[in-house]
């Protein structure tokens, strides 16, 4: 069920890499654990993060979780639609990208899981 064109982290983020750009979001498993998402705190364009840094927070009614950068780089785009419609994360988790990062080291996606490995993790 997890799209094979995405890579995943153990913290339940996904990343969609295209060239030196990467979209980042949270997985279906994450949104189910959180429940109804009500708020996202996302960084400003221009901020840079190393892999594993906290780049934002995601809140549901009952839980709050930090968002970890699956790759290192600079934030070049933030999904403003999600600020108005955080529920999209629940209805379309793998389409609801939160930020686009310009990769610091394009091609370096070491340590990320593929769809099969991630599916095993969430079993």
């Amino acid at each position, binding site marked *: 069920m997890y799209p094979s064109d995405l890579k995943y982290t153990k913290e339940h983020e996904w990343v969609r890499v295209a060239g030196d750009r990467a979209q980042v979001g949270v997985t279906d498993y994450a949104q189910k654990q959180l429940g109804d998402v*009500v*708020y996202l705190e996302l960084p400003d364009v221009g901020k840079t993060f190393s892999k594993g840094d906290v780049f934002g927070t995601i809140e549901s*009614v*009952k839980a*709050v979780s930090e968002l970890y950068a699956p790759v290192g780089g600079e934030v070049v785009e933030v999904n403003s639609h999600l600020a108005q419609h955080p529920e999209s994360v629940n209805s379309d988790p793998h389409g609801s990208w939160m930020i686009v990062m310009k990769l610091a080291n394009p091609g370096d996606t070491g340590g990320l899981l593929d769809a099969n490995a991630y599916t095993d993790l969430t079993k």
Partner: protein
Amino acid sequence: MNDTIPGSFQSRHIGPDEPERDAMLRAIGVPSLDALIDQTVPPGIRLEKPLDMPEADTEFGYLRRLRTIAANNQVARSCIGMGYYDCITPSVILRNVFENPGWYTPYTPYQAEIAQGRLESLLNFQTVVKDLTAMDIATASLLDEGTAAAEAMTMFHRLQAKKTSVGQTSVFLVSDRCFPQTLDVLKGRAEPLDIRLEIGDPGALPMENAFGLLLQYPDDHGEVRDLRPIIDKAHAAGLLVAVASDLLALTLLTPPGEMGADAVIGNSQRFGVPLGYGGPHAAFLATREAFVRQAAGRIIGLSVDARGQHALRMALQTREQHIRREKATSNICTAQALLANMAAMYAVYHGPKGLRAIAEGVHNKARVIEDALAALGFRQTNAAYFDTLRIEGASVPAVRTAAEAAGINFRYDGGAIGISLDETTTIGDVRDIIGAFAAAKGEDGTVIFKYPVPFSPNVPAALRRTSAYLTHPVFNTHHSETKMMRYIRSLERKDVGLDTSMIPLGSCTMKLNAASEMIPVSWPEFSRMHPFAPAEQAKGYAQIFDELGDALCRITGFAAVSLQPNSGAQGEFAGLMAIRAYHRDRGDAKRNVVLIPSSAHGTNPASATMAGLKVVVTKCDSNGNVELGDLHAKAEQYKDTLAALMVTYPSTHGVFEEDIKEICAIVHGHGGQVYMDGANMNAQVGLTSPAAIGADVCHLNLHKTFAIPHGGGGPGMGPIAVAKHLAPYLPGHPIVSASGGGAPRASSNGGTKAIPAISAAPWGSASILLISYGYIRMLGVDGMTSATRVAILNANYLKARLQGHYDVLYANHNGRVAHEMIFDLRPFKHAAGASVDESDVAKRLMDYGFHAPTVSFPVAGTMMIEPTESESKDELDRFCDALIAIRKEIQAVMEGKADAKDNVLKNAPHTAEEVSADQWSHPYTREQAAYPLPFVKANKFWPAVARIDNPYGDRNLICACPPVEAYAETL
């Protein structure tokens, strides 16, 4: 034991009588209550002999004796001010809110569908604060003005942390014209977070490295100054600015929000809440909308219910300690809901015009006094003021002698004399105030002045309020007593309190709040005392503090008590600060690690973080107990830095852990202190004690074990008791430094090693200490011990009755639970297909007339039930019958006999409107919806709204009374 003397207070306080107890013991399968206790409480920690305390008094005898103690308090006319002002509690509010169990016995409104009344009133409170301060949003509510200032400071610290680099010194600027008690509370809260306070004339303080500034308006002297220049300067330097203010003054003065403030804090006490020798009162915090996720305190917000109608709920709970734990915005849990509701009702009753008239009356009298004193040659130094004059150059002893002879308390601040007026100030008082000054000058005291005078404010035009406030209809409708009485009642009947049915909230101890305990709180000898009144006028209070402090020492086995903390969470902070001070005093400043079991209440890690300590979580084993191996390993790992263990006993899992002494010994062996969270003290009193298990300090939630009502979300009190070696570090107070009357074991404020004040008032919310005092005096040792035993009996009886229907998660090796238990609802929750979860059960209980147990604490997907000793067998049986009937309803869903979506559980709660509507489309009957068991008909409680949409409310935050049109839009 002599448990059930007919007519004794304990026979009234404790629910089950002798025959009921026998029947319950048979159901449990134990021969006697003694045997049950032996199977429940480990032998190694039992008290060897009964507590040595006074015999129980009767209710009549207690009240008669208390009258004589009350007579030792002398209520002077208070002109002390400093954030506390006498006021008139409108009788309709006194009788129908303050003294009404419908308002004072409910819990915090987590179960919003049966709490719409107080949620509406709290929304009114937020609107009052928001309007008068001219800010975007307000929370409801904080504990006192001092801690509200601290919450503003730490909010700014978090907000600014995003801008400043790590490691930079944090500096918070504070005007030296803030109240001294606020300064002291700030000192205590700043230091552990490495915030440096710079106190002085704000215009002269260097702003380069600072992140925020606190001003007071009107200030400590009573002076009203234009804040715009200093706020503009601070903003230009990148600071955020908080203003401590006074709601009544803001009816006349330009509000801080219009001068650019980023936060406004203060005390709403003078909106009809009695002084109470320091509390309880509701403090407030108002701020910008952009900061709402960093603001401390509950926020009431609008949402919609399942039928699309507007409904209220607590919004944005992810800010709070029960979810975010050590990352929470604050450790605040218990707030001051009852008092916030009173303040809101005061505004509803008087309306904007009435409030303004009150404020003008106060100001006019101050003007008259200023003129008269000027004529007598006194120098008043506040260029502009609202209600407070400051006289300099007078002979303080002469004025004081004359004033005290006339029964008036002024503020004596070095060589200056402060005169604060309030709505109770009469023309006679004006005459006597002037007369006291005249007498000090040797004049004959014949005072001539003119009154009434036309309103002519002495404040410059730029500081006179021009903007409207409280324009919402709710503040412009209920001005006759009939209307007001009905408005209060219309809200009250939407809420479930203990006057409706048992509230089986685990960890909350919703026991009886007896009328005889409550009545004295309104006696003027207790309610009209200013917290900084001279000690010789408060001998009655001193006696109560001494006796209560002594009783709490005996109950805990400790050496000293501080009655200052206003909540359990504040007690935790105070206790951890005392531990921290102890380590530092011994040259052990590196001890900064607190071990906290994973099952701990969220306040524990939140308080530890506030105290600048590092939280290390230790594991629990499959029985819910602290895992000794992990504890030992972590104690060893942190042996050089271990400051303390925070442990709840009996555990939050509802079990008396057998290893508790060993747990404490491991921590002591590695240089740490043991902090015991006293939330579950109701299972200990008279059987064991915090000292007996090996703890060094504990707090006592007086609003749990010691009968202070929950007030719909506060007030509470969280005194701490400490072993002898920690006594020197109990909190001090900058104004009242004497001990509580001299008894060495009782509450004291201010040894040389004392930590700064925890609360703004020296004995916290002093007036409600009377409730716990009455509880202890009327139950006596036998009664309190019996209460503990029956609390354990009731819990084990519930367990026996629910056995076979639900799984109880944890019990000890004898199969016994302490005073509460967790039952598991996770087996009914499935990702796909038919599924019932804990909130379905919670909402369905409302249809049966019950408030849910604690939901998803300490284990997600479960409920925790605590019956308390006050519930009789027949009420316990009704509650069990309801839960068993619900279990059958769950089974029907599981087996596909009921629709997976359209069933009694998913559609709960059912409102009268829905059940009586012409249209009924559900596959079950109306009777199954509303009257699922015969007993429900006898005492039906109709939820005011259907299931509330929680995500909607958090996604569309509206947290003030919305314009009437907004309701139409949501429909």
